[in-house]
């Protein structure tokens, strides 16, 4: 078996006295789609943010293709460029057009020629159905469109894995569908994805593996049929009953 793309060993993160992640072991293989579910405050987002070092872990290891990225001398910027991240709040660069958002990283970070970068950007914008909006500014498009551009921006860097941090939680209900559709298409294309989400039906459908987090630990993980159909733990059951009854 090949080494996982990302492997997390004994990861700990504390904010002051608040222990958010307690000893997390977690890994993602190439081409795998992992959905992370759990209640608010269970540490899902923090885990994702630790993986690409937006939060610096308090302890443990993060291995990227078997190499520890927390070691001294590792360049966090270079490492982050190889992982794509999609945020709950989109975070498109508001001073740039849609196209520029997808071009700037390729030119500044990857050192690509502008023309080539634009071509790549347009092809990914096409993939998320936003190529008609290349000249628009983020303030001129809807939430769902922003999130699709944000996905295209991350894809334009041609990352080895994509991290999604509750990508549909800030969207109006009518716009959730268009974003999930793009993500479903990406999952089918064999992209490695880690998705933190509250969309249970979506997780059940696209995930190869579902991870349930509770109170800073991974309580249970397994194939979606097992986690959603026949979870072992009482707290997994309770969480699912609660969240599904809300819908």
């Amino acid at each position, binding site marked *: 078996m090949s080494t996982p793309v990302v492997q997390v060993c004994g990861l700990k993160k504390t904010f002051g006295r608040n222990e958010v992640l307690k000893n997390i072991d977690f890994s993602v293989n190439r081409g795998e789609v992992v959905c992370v579910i759990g209640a608010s405050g269970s540490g899902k987002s923090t885990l994702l943010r630790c993986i690409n070092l937006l939060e610096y872990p308090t302890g443990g290891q993060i291995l990227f293709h078997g190499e520890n990225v927390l070691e001294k001398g590792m360049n966090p910027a270079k490492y982050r460029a190889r992982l794509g991240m999609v945020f709950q*709040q989109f975070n498109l660069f508001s001073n740039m057009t849609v196209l520029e958002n997808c071009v700037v990283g390729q030119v500044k970070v990857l050192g690509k020629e502008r023309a080539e970068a634009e071509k790549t950007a347009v092809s990914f914008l096409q993939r998320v159905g936003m190529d008609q909006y290349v000249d628009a500014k983020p303030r001129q498009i809807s939430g769902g469109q922003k999130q699709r551009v944000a996905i295209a921006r991350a894809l334009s860097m041609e990352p080895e894995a994509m991290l999604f941090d509750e990508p549909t939680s800030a969207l109006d209900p009518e716009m959730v569908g268009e974003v999930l559709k793009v993500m479903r298409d990406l999952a089918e294309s064999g992209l490695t994805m880690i998705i933190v989400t509250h969309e249970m039906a979506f997780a059940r459908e696209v995930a190869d593996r579902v991870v349930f987090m509770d109170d800073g630990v991974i309580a249970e993980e397994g194939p979606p049929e097992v986690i959603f159909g026949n979870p072992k733990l009482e707290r997994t059951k309770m969480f699912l009953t609660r969240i599904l009854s809300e819908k």
Partner: protein
Amino acid sequence: MWLLVGTRNTLLISITGTVVGFAIGLLVAVLRTIPKNPGDPLVKRGAMRFVNILLSVYIEVFRGTPMMVQGILVYYGLMEAFQIDLAPITAGILVVSINTGAYMAEIARGGIESIDRGQYEAAQSIGMNHTQTMLSVILPQAIRNILPATGNEFVINIKDTSVLSAIMVSELFFMTNSIKGAIYRTFEPFFITCVIYLILTFTVTRILRLIERRLDGPDSYEMRPITKEEKAEGGVEI
């Protein structure tokens, strides 16, 4: 004629002072907002701390003392202590620039800190380092946001260059005073000067509004039609 010379000098000092002050302010603010990582070596942390203290002192001293006093100290002080004989107008530009820099430093810091954290995080997530993040993402937005405050500083500078008459700079107020001495009338020359000041400040605020609008770009955007060939090339139907 004298009024024209005065107007020209007032404009020269306030424009140069504001532009240089803006650059100083931006630089100081950028230095003061460099993130501090607990992992940094002790030497780097120490150096950053020292620079920060130095910059705070600069800001406090130049914001906390009157520009007229600064002008006299710089002009006569340099002459008496170091035998450096600056032209009054050079001393004037120097004082206005440094003074504006101190105010702009705080304005620019506010501008930088007002940019949403998400913008930094997004830039970092695509692999930008701090310098790239600042240059491509943060500063363009921060500069746009501090333009109105910069306009304020500009207007203040046009008016406050009048205190430089204390070091014999032949700006508008100084020249008007000279006219008063020559023709023994006060009201007329100062009324005209008043109008000139008003025209200057009004024009400057208009120009800055124009620049703001230019930076904001057009309110609408054109949809780019996709050609059939492009569609055939791929691109998933959404």
